[in-house]
């Protein structure tokens, strides 16, 4: 399990620079990120080394921000690695809202951040199928 920081951003010049500057000045390191955008706004999703602090500094800087539960899955870093994880999730009818790659690796594995509809179900299935995922403290320290 892991905490993702989500930030609402209008499509305006300099907003992304501002968020990252605020985090940088607070000594927060970004480990993974993705942006979902529409014509009017974007949603920035971040995995950082200190989510609680990131949440607070962004809130203090008057951003609209929330914490979201996501899951960091270890995926074999070889062709077809992600496909086999996704196939098993599909078989088990586990809906994925979105996913994006983590910057670092874990041993030989790549890391992918998943936002799923039912996180408890995801854990159960991953345990049953032997799909590895990281606990929070390990992830933030990577």
């Amino acid at each position, binding site marked *: 399990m892991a905490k993702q920081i989500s930030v609402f951003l209008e499509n305006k010049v300099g907003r992304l620079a501002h968020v990252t500057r605020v985090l940088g000045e607070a000594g927060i390191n970004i480990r993974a990120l993705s942006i979902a955008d529409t014509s009017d706004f974007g*949603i920035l999703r971040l995995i950082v080394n200190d989510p609680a602090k990131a949440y607070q500094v962004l809130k203090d800087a008057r*951003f*609209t921000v*929330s914490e979201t539960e996501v899951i960091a899955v270890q995926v074999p870093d070889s062709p077809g690695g992600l496909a086999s994880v996704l196939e098993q999730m599909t078989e088990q009818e586990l809906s994925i809202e979105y996913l994006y790659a983590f910057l670092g690796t874990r041993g030989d594995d790549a890391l992918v951040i998943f*936002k799923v509809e039912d996180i408890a179900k995801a854990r159960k299935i991953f345990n049953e199928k032997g799909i590895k995922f990281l606990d929070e403290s390990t992830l933030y320290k990577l």
Partner: protein
Amino acid sequence: MTYWDKEKECMPREYLEKLQLRRLQETVYRAYAFVPAYKEKMEQVGVKPEDIRSIEDIKLLPFTTKQDLRDNYPFGLFAVPMSDVVRIHSSSGTTGKPTVVGYTSKDIDSWAELMARALYSAGASRYSVIQNSYGYGLFTGGLGAHYGAEKIGASVIPTSGGNTRRQIMLMQDFGSSILTCTPSYALFMYEVMREMGIKPSDLKLKAGVFGAEPWSENMRREIENKLEIDAYDIYGLSEIVGPGVAIECNVKNGLHIAEDHFIPEIIDPETCAVMPEGEAGELVLTTITKEALPMIRYRTRDLSTLNLATCDCGRTHARMRKVLGRSDDMVIIRGVNVFPSMVESVLLNIPGVEPHYLLVVDRRDNLDELEVHVEVSEQVFSDEVRKMENLGLQIGRELESALGIAVKVRLVEHKTIERSEGKAKRVIDKRNI
């Protein structure tokens, strides 16, 4: 120079004022006797109908506002029994209660006379084919213009608004010579004409009578050049009667207020003091012939000036300058009155949405557009795009059903809309009108 009713329209002011006084006294007596709300308001300021001895005494009477209409919803200000009311119209008003207006059969006839005068002033006659593209229905524009056109004996095409290509086809096939609609719709029609490959010279259109929304001299020039017609400004509001309260003549230097039916005043919107002739302020109108719904010193919220000098056209009725703006924050979008407070009440009904918003009005391709900026609070923020887009769509749908016009919603960051200690700025109007 031709007039629909020369005796009234060119009446020397001395006689006009005598007529006004007699009609004002009658109106005040009737309002006092038959409308408890008027009686109460007059008693509060200690005025009795017999105190009105000259036109200047109108100043003694209390003002009436839109709020009075709402407070007495629906028929509380009517001065006649419902059996004498033959027509009811209503504003598009949407927060809480709309404003409701009623007419006796004599009121309908006076209104038709006023509209006949207005159309005649714009060059209409019994030989005209008048295409009436004001909306028919609860809105006063459609039926108001219709009755006036029939009164003249012109041939009326009651197209109402919308279905523009068909309108233009009919305009060409039926040989419409006068168009009545909002000025922005006239320009929109021109764009559609071009798409259809129809030139103004293919049409018989000579003049247009445009109103129900504010428009500038620049817009007049644009309409006149593009459609190759004479464009006349018409003024009215449903609370007073509907369109036909004032109309431009061919001099196009102010709109003649039908002073045998209405007494105009200009006040300072802050102090409510009556301003001298020529000074700018809020237009206040008193009806002096209306039976069903007399309006005493109704605050229109429209900003203008008055000119009492006899016009080059020969008419003696006071001219009001083209409306310069509003003394409240109402905006008129495609003929629909929109108050920021309506937007606020819609937003407050959506859980988690805070009432921090801004209305941005713009005119694109000659059509007014309303964009509403709404702040995203933490309660409604989601990390999923789909949910955020659905929120925008939901707000848009609810605003559209409340306001009756298309709305684009833009979600903006929390605390980016200016907060103000006093009156928050809720509207940005980019239309330059």
